[in-house]
């Protein structure tokens, strides 16, 4: 059974953390992953940096630019991660834009993920329709869960379709925004959270975008299974380095 499925079955709210691989320093990847696991994080999204991250706000853009400048590549990330399963057991997801994966070769990429022990992928600019028609069988062959996004503007019909193609959880984007743009949730988000909860989807939902502290984490997970923090954690790394990860995590819950 995939580690993501096991984790989702636990009777607790999921805290997922995103970080950009290769930032702050090229070789921080393993230390950050280990630090997150020992701080009690449930799931980790390892960001594969891209030169043109369309769906991301300034914080993740800057960390991506810095990571690329530090020399991060797909090959180097895989090399860093090759022994990760000797020390880390929580689910690991790689999040990245489609072009670098396409250049690596989608099947090669998926195979490498399986070899390492990566559990899933989030590829924001690979649309669910294209995935379903062209790539689904490859992902399934290598036991990878592909995670799709929904937003407040996504129609019920399309949410049902995304739910039917999904096999782990749904990444619920909290508001119409890029990452790191807003913090806190208003009435609009609350009613969106409730609308989705009432749909009784097959896949649990994990909320992302706009979560930065325990207050927003608790709001987001009132009806959803979990929440993802990205930009706020990257800011923490920028300000405090990789040594005090638990300080950040323990304040969330």
């Amino acid at each position, binding site marked *: 059974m995939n580690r993501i499925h096991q984790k989702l079955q636990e009777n607790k709210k999921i805290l997922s953390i995103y970080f950009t691989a290769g930032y702050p320093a090229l070789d921080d990847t393993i230390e950050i992953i280990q630090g997150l696991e020992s701080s009690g994080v449930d799931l980790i999204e390892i960001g594969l940096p891209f030169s043109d991250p369309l769906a991301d706000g300034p914080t993740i853009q800057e960390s991506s630019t810095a990571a690329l400048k530090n020399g991060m590549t797909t090959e180097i990330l895989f090399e860093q991660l090759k022994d990760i399963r000797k020390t880390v057991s929580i689910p690991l997801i790689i999040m990245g834009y489609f072009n670098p994966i396409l250049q690596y070769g989608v099947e090669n990429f998926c195979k490498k993920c399986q070899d390492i022990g990566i559990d899933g992928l989030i590829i924001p*600019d690979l649309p669910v329709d294209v995935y379903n028609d062209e790539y689904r069988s490859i992902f399934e062959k290598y036991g990878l869960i592909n995670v799709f996004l929904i937003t407040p503007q996504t129609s019920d019909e399309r949410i049902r379709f995304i739910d039917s193609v999904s096999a782990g959880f749904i990444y619920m*984007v909290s508001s*119409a925004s890029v990452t790191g743009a807003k913090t806190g949730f208003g009435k609009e988000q609350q009613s969106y959270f409730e609308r989705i909860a009432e749909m009784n989807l097959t896949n649990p939902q994990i909320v992302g975008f706009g979560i930065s502290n325990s207050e927003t984490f608790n709001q987001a997970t009132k009806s959803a299974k979990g929440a993802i923090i990205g930009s706020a954690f990257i800011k923490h790394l920028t300000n405090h380095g990789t040594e005090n990860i638990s300080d950040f995590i323990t304040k969330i819950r």
Partner: protein
Amino acid sequence: MSYNANSKGYYGEFGGAYIPEMLYPNCEELRQNYIIIMQEASFKEEFEQLLKDYVGRPTPLYFAERLSKKYNTKIYLKREDLCHTGAHKVNNTIGQILMAKRLGKNRIIAETGAGQHGVATATVCALMGIKCVVYMGEIDIERQAPNVARMKMLGAEVRPAKSGSRTLKDATNEAIRDWINNPVDTHYIIGSVVGPHPYPDMVARFQAIISEEIKWQLKEKEGRENPDYVVACVGGGSNAAGAYYHFLDNENVGIIAVEAAGKGIDSGESAATSALGKVGIIHGSKTLLMQTADGQITEPYSISAGLDYPGVGPMHAHLFKSGRGEFISITDNAAMEAGLMISKLEGIIPAIESSHAFAILEERKFNADDIVVINLSGRGDKDLNTYIDHFNL
């Protein structure tokens, strides 16, 4: 073989809509409506009226006698340089502003490199009284001060793109991010035949007026609708798409695309995507693009700000891959010389983009009885400083 987009926006293997889910509702709304709206009688009437009375269409198809004599072939220039705002860009912005109005949008965003598309967008927004925000790379803002001033005079807000390399591709990223943040009231006027479906097809259809006019104008002058060759420069490729559009399916018409070689194909400072690009995804479209082995998009270079885009529109990628189009790349120096040559020979100072198209005459020989139409996409006023610096005028 078809050279137009299919219903999913693919030209052969190129095109599609590789967009984050946040953009899906916007693109889907446009996809479902654009052809229906463009076919409405009231839309056509308003579009044609504005092209005629506001843009100044039809633009002349001019027989360049001295140029023809010099190169011993029959050369016609399609005078898009005479359009209001100085280039073909306004054909598309007129079309899209009317589209935006019909979709009930009250805010316009656009990206711009050299500022030509930004000016054309700010112009139509002023015309319609609609709020306009133009994203422009911080570096381009410094380089293109007169166009920034024009946009401001026209009432647009120019926002600097400060991310990445701070040029056109980053301005495009910022515009897309703005659209993600404003999904309901905003229409994004993309300036070229790039971006996710339906943009490449929609922009090509708006620019298709260029080849539509060439057909009847050539019929009047030569008694035949089809030239032997149509030549256009390609950055993203909107003027080329418009010039080729009605000739795509007629294989007797040769299609010649001219890219910017910059300082030379192998110099590391080039924008010749067909020579240097590989299949990949840029700004929501699968196309040929310049990138590292690792899939990071690289920064192109050309002396012409309108040609330094790291990709080409999916239509052009398909024309290249299928062999339907002949692709030639021209260096900065050759383009500048051609610009000076046209100025002296025909009394027309071309935009440096268009100068690239003229430069092929030095290396690509045509028969004496060939009819060659060169799309003169814009005028050179905006490039005066570059010409001055290059030739120490």
